[in-house]
């Protein structure tokens, strides 16, 4: 039998953020089996029917986020476990703090990560408040990460999980000390196959349900169609950001139909034929320019990140050696981390890194420990 951090705790009232998936359902089952009072909560964040029928959107939108099927699954799990279960509506906050910024970022030539925004503004903010308000001592989620208190530093630490292939710490760097102190990640010491076994052991019918991958509110993962449909629904015109394709030396070699169609590192769809393959190197949002170059031009040794949240330390008094991840699937690369302003840092990699993309997060690690993270400028 697997042990978790929660097993050492005396029985408590714990709210579980339930998505209807295997991970969070298993968390609820584990905590219940350990004798805690468990309350299941699902956030209603986005109405899938809103954009149905808009151009490029299916007639009946079957996205993953907040679909009735997922709520049904979560409710069934709660019934099976005999725990109270509620759906809480945070659609307004989700649109304001996640969907709108997602749209604005693309329209400004950046490549956003809505999951981190959702964690910071919804799951570990709004939902944590609701959890406390309804009398829960803590909020547990199905994220693969670990949280523990470090006596020496006097700080809560966010650490990589045992199953590094499922590591979700990249999306969790924004959690504050207060949020971490009230958060449980019971799956942090488990692998996905173990979680599925445990789900089966607890008799959960959805043990074999596939993992969700795509951005939950973008059906089929086509963000361009989503932008079109969302702006049409809002009665807003897609801003005209068509402009020039320029080389790294400033030479104009063509035109493009809008900066939101590009992301750094992209190779296809540039519409120009040259001898060697061309890549998007940079998007100059203010000038509507897309800078293209060859493979080598994609590499860069430094990045700046702002809106930095520090987790393992309270300040960066001197430069620190860390590994830095610049996208979810990035392995992390050794770098020097130094403060460059208020909530801003400069990261200097030992080796140049490919396609450092504004809008993505840079997350800093000391071994398994998340030092902190920020948004790439």
């Amino acid at each position, binding site marked *: 039998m697997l042990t978790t951090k929660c097993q050492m705790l005396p029985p408590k009232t714990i709210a579980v953020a339930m998505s209807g998936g295997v991970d969070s359902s298993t968390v609820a089952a584990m905590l219940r089996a350990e004798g805690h009072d468990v309350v299941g909560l699902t956030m209603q964040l986005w109405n899938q029917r809103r954009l149905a029928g808009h151009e490029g959107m299916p007639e009946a939108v079957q996205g993953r986020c907040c679909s009735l099927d997922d709520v049904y699954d979560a409710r069934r799990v709660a019934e099976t476990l005999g725990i*109270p279960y509620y759906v809480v509506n945070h659609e307004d906050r989700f649109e304001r703090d996640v969907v709108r910024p997602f749209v604005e970022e693309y329209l400004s030539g950046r490549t956003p990560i809505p999951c981190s925004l959702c964690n910071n503004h919804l799951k570990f903010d709004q939902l944590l408040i609701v959890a406390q308000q309804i009398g829960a001592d803590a909020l547990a989620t199905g994220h693969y990460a670990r949280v523990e208190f470090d006596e020496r530093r006097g700080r809560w630490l966010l650490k990589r999980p045992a199953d590094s292939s499922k590591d979700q710490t990249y999306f969790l760097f924004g959690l504050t000390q207060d949020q971490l102190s009230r958060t449980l990640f019971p799956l942090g010491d488990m692998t996905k196959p173990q979680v599925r076994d445990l789900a089966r052991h607890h008799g959960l019918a959805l043990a074999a349900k596939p993992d969700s991958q795509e951005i939950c509110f973008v059906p089929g993962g086509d963000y361009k169609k989503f932008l079109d449909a969302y702006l049409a629904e809002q009665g807003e015109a897609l801003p005209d950001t068509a402009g020039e394709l320029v080389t790294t030396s400033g030479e104009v070699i063509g035109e493009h139909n809008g900066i939101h169609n590009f992301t750094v590192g992209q190779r296809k769809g540039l519409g120009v034929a040259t001898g060697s393959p061309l890549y998007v190197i940079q998007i100059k949002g203010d000038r509507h320019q897309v800078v293209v170059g060859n493979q080598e031009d994609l590499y860069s040794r430094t990045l700046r990140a702002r809106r930095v949240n520090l987790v393992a330390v309270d300040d960066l008094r001197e430069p620190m050696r860390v590994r830095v991840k610049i996208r979810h699937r990035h392995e992390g690369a050794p770098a020097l981390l130094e403060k460059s302003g208020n909530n801003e840092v400069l990261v200097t990699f030992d080796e140049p890194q490919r396609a450092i993309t504004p809008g993505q997060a840079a997350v800093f690690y000391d071994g398994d420990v998340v030092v902190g993270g920020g948004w790439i400028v």
Partner: protein
Amino acid sequence: MRRVYLDNNATTPVLPEVLEAMRPYFAEQFGNASSIHHHGQETRAAVERARESLAALIGCRASEIVFTSGGTEGDNLAISGVTRAGDHVITSTIEHHAVLNSCKHLEAMGCEVTYVPVDGRGLVDPDDVRRALRPNTKLITIMMANNETGVLQTVEEIGKIAAEADVYFHTDAVQAAGKTPIEVKRIGCDLLSISGHKLHAPQGVGALYVGKGTILQPMFYGGSHERSRRAGTENVPGIIGLGKAAEIAREALDRGGLERMSAMRDRIEQTILSQVEATGVNGEGAPRVPNTTNIHFDYIEGEALVIALDLKGLAVSTGAACSSGAIEPSHVLTAMGLPPEIARASLRFSLGKQNTPEDVQFALDLVPRTVARLRELSPVYNRTAVSN
């Protein structure tokens, strides 16, 4: 855990007498009311007694009662039953979704609909209804009592306007039946819907009053049940239950039995308003049914309060549940001009015949301290408290 149910506008428990009256009609007196033999006659007689009981509750003839599956069917049948493409319909912004979405459907089918507003108390101004009349107006549909606030509309004045203009008048009386006297002749309505489970009959049965001379297009086609206005074998146990519940409701109204309920309701309001700061009654100043109060607790999310109270054993509600079970901001409170944050901070307490003063005391012990804890954890409340 002790559980107290103060959400009777959502549904009410079936009264023991009602259940008793229904019991023989499942397995013993099971006949089809359309059958000519003994079994059928037995059932037919019982259904007709229930019809008379309903008719007595609202002051109409038994032949003017059509049994339905509930309030939603009654509203749909009334609205779609008297309109066709090209007609104009007048309704209000605070109707139940059974009416609002029926009207939305009419718009999609080529009708025009005017949604008259309400004032801060939740009242429709009859003059607004009069001004909305057009040569092609076919129907006015304005509810009698609102489900969220309990506010009673001046349906008699609206009935006069409808009569003068010679247009049909439908009123959704789902939340009024059993809570206030209903006389269809005095209201001057042609159509009036009732739901069984809001007055201690079971879920899945209702009635629609269809005044003599009202030409109603049915929604269901089939046999000649309900004088061809609603085909389908009757829900006999449900109808018997509704008949019994109507009888009990009429006796209570005659006896002045609602005073006990309004005293309990007033006690909830007075205690909460005096013990909890930054609260108020939505719909205050308007006539209301005696069982409902809708109170705003500023600086909190009603949704979190409902969950917190449920976990302590008290069932109340806020807003309307959408398909996932999440709470949507109330269109009724928003239409009354309440800012969205106040609408979301509002809770409905609704009493039923089964509730006792002890139930009320349980709620009054629980609500103030639960609100206090929510406010302690509310970023908005703390910001406001600091700035004060």
